């Protein structure tokens, strides 16, 4: 199994994400934003957190137009699996792979702390959790206030595409949504950082399970 982690100028969770994928049994290739094609044989693409292009214009907006992202989009359109965390989630909404957008936190503050989440949507990313299970993951963002129109929010809920909800909404996100899935459930975008809670030394391993089942799930998929 091979995973690609995209690296933009300003990415700062790329290596953490690579380690989390490696621990879950993936061979990982770091892929520079100026590359025009993903390496061959990629099973999973990770779009990491950070401040791509300094968050200029809008978070994720410049990265969403980077050369490699065109191929990530093509990969997803062909049914490829993509995980976007934090800034990666912002990039995925900017590309249109996921609906909605991330606005400035309602309290205008950068928030860096561990928050409670309820696991909901059915996907390979959430398959190691029980539906309805409460877990804790760190968040670290200034623009994590998920916004979409009511019709889109209804659609996400109706199709079971809300992967995670905040148990105590920290940023004003619509209907407490912390992570959402694409229509085919193969693209997940989430503001919390599972890769920062994926080994004993982190003091929390709730995030490790998001990665743990991926290789076996992909083998049988």
């Amino acid at each position: 199994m091979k995973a690609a982690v995209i690296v933009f100028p300003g990415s700062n969770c790329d290596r953490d994400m690579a380690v989390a994928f490696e621990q879950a049994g993936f061979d990982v290739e770091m892929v520079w934003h100026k590359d025009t094609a993903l390496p061959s044989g990629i099973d999973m693409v990770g779009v990491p957190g950070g401040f791509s292009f300094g968050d200029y214009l809008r978070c994720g907006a410049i990265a969403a137009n980077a050369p490699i992202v065109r191929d990530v989009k093509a990969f997803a359109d062909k049914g490829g699996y993509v995980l976007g965390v934090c800034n990666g989630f912002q990039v995925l909404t900017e590309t249109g792979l996921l609906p909605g957008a991330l606005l400035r936190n309602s309290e205008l503050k950068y928030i860096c702390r561990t928050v409670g989440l309820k696991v909901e949507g059915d996907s390979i990313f959430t398959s190691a959790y029980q539906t309805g299970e409460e877990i804790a993951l760190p968040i670290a963002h200034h623009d994590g206030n998920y916004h979409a129109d009511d019709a889109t929010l209804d659609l996400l809920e109706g199709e079971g595409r809300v992967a995670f909800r905040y148990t105590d909404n920290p940023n004003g996100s619509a209907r407490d949504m912390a992570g959402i899935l694409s229509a085919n459930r193969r693209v997940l975008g989430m503001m919390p950082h599972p890769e920062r809670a994926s080994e004993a030394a982190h003091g929390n391993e709730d995030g490790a399970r998001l990665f743990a089942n991926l290789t076996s799930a992909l083998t049988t998929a």
Partner: protein
Amino acid sequence: MKVRVHVMLKQGVLDPQGEAVRHALGALGFEGVSSVRQGKVIELDLADGTSEATIGEMCEKLLANTVIESYRVEQL
């Protein structure tokens, strides 16, 4: 040719920065400020004859996120 693109959050999209500015104006003693909306102004220096359609495409593809923002192009 020069154009100025005004990008604003759409009506109905919460603008926490505008709200913070409104509160700050109130704290300074300015009365009657019922609403503040904050946006962006982007000035473009373009080749003469750049079509409106092309400028519109620039706005749609990059300058504004039309999920949350509206834009207006002003010819200078």
